[in-house]
């Protein structure tokens, strides 16, 4: 195979000229992808199609954990009607990408096991596919029963429908139907040509990953506009990202305790989460960090007073969090609810292309902060934390360890912050993007890798924008993890993954 069949992006975020991305015919494209993805260190971070003139252009990006490179290759075709050989039958993790391409453009994939719609966008190819009369998978049997949950749920969570096929209390199969939250963000990113509006939009992709998505967008824009930001700003961005991680991990620990009716763990962790998000509020006026990440500069440079108050809050939070997690993970009644429940095996994680936490609980040390560092992680890569058991306990413990690790990281970085030069650069929205280019930007949010990629047109306007939230893959991991579990354990399994509905629906 010729090496020139793909172009490798060595630095997470660097743009390439569109014309430099090799265009392969489909058999070569297919074989090359198959070969690259058979390497366990590689995984697909983006595979999508978009119309260019009267052609449909397919772009696929494969990230390699060892080399830190991202290989980009493409394929073009005129006639959408030709059925392509499905990659899913060889590499199952590709199933969502192919379903998405099928849903948007009607491209047929031969041998794809199940071209189930993903999010029912308004301009979908098959207008006849309607969410309300979607034919759920069924098993004909006298003994089995179906349980449908949602889309409206008890409690304050997002809409999504879960259809269980159960044998008594045991779940045989779970089908997840999403798309209720579809807002057309990718399209809005193109329509709104105002950079400020795009920034606001990117912060609204998933309410619990404001910083992660905002940072992915900013990284993308800054590299396309060839902006360099100061080290101080990069450190501040890292701190914001880790604060988000700590807050969500602690909040999820509370939610896990609530689901098993362990009141003490719930109330203590809820209180701790509040102290962290209040710290973010102290910094930028918004508890979820909206407005903190901006291209080119920052409206809220960190002050010494803020850093001091943040450090003392973190110190206190760490002490109390260690105290309560030691209790939670040694209490027999809690352990019996977490241990061995909802196991995701490493094989399943690899099969579904699980990313982020869902991969790390099975022992796959995949973390963009290490493999494809961005912002200040380039100078200071982070060693991923892993667990091996893949159950609810592993997901709880991973949260525990990652939150502790993040607090440690922030402490280290604040020392560097003092050495770094002051920079009071304000955000810059008058950037000009490099024309006819492609760029991809990855960040590691608390849930996993967030991927934004964009294609620019002749005069530097964005002609295509693609977002991938970690939930996109991980929902399938959840569906596999609850098989053969009791249906009453589903809520705690679901909560331990805590996947995003709107991140999937966009």
């Amino acid at each position, binding site marked *: 195979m010729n090496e020139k069949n793909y172009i490798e992006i060595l630095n997470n975020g660097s743009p390439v000229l569109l014309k430099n991305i090799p265009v392969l015919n489909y058999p070569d494209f297919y074989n090359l992808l198959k070969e690259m993805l058979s390497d366990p260190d590689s995984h697909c971070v983006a595979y999508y199609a978009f119309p260019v003139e009267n052609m449909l252009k397919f772009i696929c990006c494969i990230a390699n954990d060892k080399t830190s490179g991202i290989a980009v290759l493409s394929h073009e075709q005129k006639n959408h009607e030709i059925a392509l050989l499905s990659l899913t039958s060889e590499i199952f993790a590709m199933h969502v990408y192919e379903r998405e391409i099928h849903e948007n453009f009607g491209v047929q994939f031969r041998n794809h096991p199940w071209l189930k719609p993903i999010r029912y966008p308004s301009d979908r190819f098959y207008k006849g596919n309607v969410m309300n009369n979607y034919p759920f998978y069924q098993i004909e049997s006298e003994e089995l029963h179906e349980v449908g949950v949602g889309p409206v749920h008890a409690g304050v969570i997002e809409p999504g429908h879960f259809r269980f096929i159960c044998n008594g209390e045991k779940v045989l199969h779970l089908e997840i139907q999403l798309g209720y939250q579809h807002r057309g963000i990718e399209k809005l990113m193109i329509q709104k040509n105002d950079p400020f509006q795009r920034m606001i939009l990117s912060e609204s992709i998933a309410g619990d990953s404001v910083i992660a998505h905002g940072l992915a967008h900013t990284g993308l824009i800054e590299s396309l506009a060839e902006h360099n930001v100061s080290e101080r700003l990069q450190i501040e961005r890292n701190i914001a990202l880790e604060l988000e991680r700590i807050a969500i991990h602690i909040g999820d620990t509370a939610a896990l305790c609530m689901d098993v009716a362990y009141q003490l763990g719930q109330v203590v962790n809820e209180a701790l989460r509040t102290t962290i998000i209040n710290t973010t509020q102290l910094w930028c006026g918004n508890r979820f960090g909206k407005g903190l990440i901006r291209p080119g500069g920052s409206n809220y440079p960190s002050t010494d007073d803020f850093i001091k108050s943040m450090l003392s809050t973190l110190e206190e939070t760490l002490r109390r969090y260690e105290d309560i997690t030691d209790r939670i993970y040694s209490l027999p009644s809690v352990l019996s609810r977490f241990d061995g429940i909802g196991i995701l095996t490493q094989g399943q994680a690899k099969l579904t292309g699980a990313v982020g936490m869902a991969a790390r609980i099975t022992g796959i040390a995949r973390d963009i902060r290490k493999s494809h560092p961005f912002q200040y992680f380039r100078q200071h890569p982070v060693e991923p934390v892993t667990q091996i058991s893949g159950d609810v306990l592993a997901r709880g413990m991973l949260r525990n360890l990652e939150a502790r690790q993040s607090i440690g990281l922030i402490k280290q970085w604040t020392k560097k912050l003092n050495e770094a030069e002051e920079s009071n650069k304000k955000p810059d929205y008058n950037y000009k993007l490099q024309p006819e280019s492609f760029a991809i930007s990855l960040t590691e949010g608390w849930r996993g890798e967030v991927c934004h990629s964009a294609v620019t047109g002749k005069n530097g306007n964005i002609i295509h924008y693609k977002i991938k939230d970690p939930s996109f893959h991980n929902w399938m991991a959840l569906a596999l993890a609850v098989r053969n579990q009791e249906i009453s*354990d589903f809520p705690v399994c679901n909560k331990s993954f805590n996947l995003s509905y709107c991140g999937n629906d966009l």
Partner: protein
Amino acid sequence: MKFAGIFLIIMAAAIFPGIILRVKSIAGGRKGPGIFQPLKDIRVLLMKGSVFSQTTSFIFQIAPTIALATVVIAILLVPVANQDAVFAFEGDFVFFAYLLALGKFFTIISALDTGSAFEGMGANREALFSMLIEPAFFILLATFAMFTGYTSFSDIMTHFHITDNHYVMIFSILGFYVLIQIAMIENSRVPVDDPKTHLELTMIHEVIILDNSGFDKALIHIGTFLKFSIYGALISSYLVPAGWNIGAQVALFIGIQVFFATIIGYLESFRARNKMVKNSQYILTVSAIAIIAFVIVLILTNKL
């Protein structure tokens, strides 16, 4: 005097759930609602109308009333503070158990009547766990009956004195443990059920009343509160010595009810609930302990 007992039970029922809530919120470091909040909620519900799903039949509409009626009749059989119950006859505890079971039966079929998948699952769980706890109750009552030689709640209680004999203490402790466990399980508390949860898939009792609203829901809640204090009354009846004067007995009754509620609230604050499959095993263990108490009495009464 007999009707004073009923008054006491109703009074205890009024404060019981509030105390549990209060203890749980204090243990959780929160201010929490006042002790009478559950009562205020019931008042609000009573003023509302009920909404009935079109798929339900008359069963769904009469079930809450029947369930409450069975609980009210059951109260008449319970002796309070060493006074005789309103009704007492030989073997009345069997009548008592099946009265409550009748109420539960109607709640379960009304859940099935809604045709909801959740409620079907809940009904299944409720039926299974009620069935499993039944032996514990009867073995326990048989133990007391055999020890005293009487088969009515009132008689058993009047002739049962824990201070008589050191050996009595052994099986009494087991007996009270079993009785408390039965009360917890019958009233859907942690660790078997979680009354606070919002997750339909994990609920047992809460899910089968999911479709009830307004007035009917208030009746169901009143029934639950009363059931609590019935078990509290049973526990205190066995503890209160017959010889005491009435004032001390009433004080002890109230004290025991408050203590019982506090203990439940405290236990619920510091542990997680069981896995659903573990529940069956957990409940059978209660029956096993009841058998131990039974065997001890067999030995004590020289019947073995």
